[in-house]
């Protein structure tokens, strides 16, 4: 689980890009703002991952699967 809560863009995207260098099939990241949710989703989709999002009290958990 990658915790990017409180970080503003581009930091969450830099974080997921670094993590994705290990080419695993699944990543989970939690962010707390809509911009980060959109940007991380976009980046993961470009990398060929399918992204599902669940929201709870202003925090978004992004599950990225290949």
């Amino acid at each position: 689980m990658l915790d990017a809560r409180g970080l503003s863009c581009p930091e969450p995207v830099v974080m997921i890009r670094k993590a994705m260098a290990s080419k695993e099939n699944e990543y989970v990241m939690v962010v707390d703002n809509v911009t980060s949710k959109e940007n991380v989703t976009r980046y993961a989709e470009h990398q060929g991952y399918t992204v599902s999002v669940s929201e709870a009290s202003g925090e978004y958990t992004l599950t990225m699967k290949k």
Partner: protein
Amino acid sequence: MKTKNEKLGIMIAGAVIGIIAVLLVLFGNPKNMGYCIACFLRDTAGGLKLHSAAVVQYVRPEIIGLVLGSFIMATLKKEWAPKGGSAPFTRFILGFFVMIGCLAFLGCPFRMTLRLAGGDLNALVGLAGFVVGILCGVFFLNKGYSLKRTYKQPKLEGAVAPAIQVVLLVVLVALPTLLVFSEKGPGSMHAPIIISLIAGLVVGALAQRSRMCMVGGIRDVILFKETKLLSGFVVLFVAALIGNLVLNAVKGGGFFKLGFIGADWVQPVAHTAHIWNFLGMMLVGYGCTLLGGCPLRQLILAGEGNTDSAITVTGLVVGAAFCHNFGLAGSAASITDGVVATGGVGVNGQVMVIVGLIVCTIIGCVNTFGKKD
């Protein structure tokens, strides 16, 4: 599909913002200055007597509108979220130096784009510096640069920045004698209050929805090969360029002049000191990348409840006051009795631009290579 919608959204926003920027000039704003976040914060600082440069004093309703437009849109979309605590004073300092860079060049990244759309090639030199500055910031981002996380803040804390704009609007409309208004120079040139305010509200709302950011556009292409934000920037440029060419044809010259400077003409509110146009915008690109967004984006985030951005805007305002109190700002090229003066940046300003680049590098190093908590 969703990505395509986001991209289409920001391109429409860019087109609308570009056209509004040109119309603001038609209604009275200085040439190539439909919008300039740096110039307008500087004018507002002057209007509030934080500096006494007589030609740049006016509480700009565009700024009020931008923050409130973002605030209203974020509230409607349930994105208004008070938060802060990510190195606020470091952000204040970065904001301070970003303003020094902007005023050495004579414009923020937004106005740089509008200057390009008006044919001002001095802004092309600025753009080159801007990209180099962003590259410096990206170097640190790639190495793990972070100003650490924000935390939730009380609602009141997040509401202060929009509330201040409401107060400024009330004072501007109901108690203008408290303020100072330029009688000549760029500060005296402005669209009617109601038009400026509505333009600010519309652009603030659009920028909030589209996440428009001049620094982010170039940064994301370099970092992630992601073109969404840049596409907004490009469409804004094209829309303003077309708008200027149309006005040139309809209203006569002055809205578009291609070149650096001529034998009998100068670019509006611009100078030809290429080194300082380059280094000024380099400082802006560098500082804004370390901040995470351009001055426009800082205003929008302040409207969304981000108190770190509100502090950054305060840094920009204080920076503007220092620029005019200590002679740091660039002076525009001008024509007196038929003689063209090229303008430029004085020694004080040159020194402070260099100091700013050094400060950015120190902030970058400490927050990248410093001991992790």
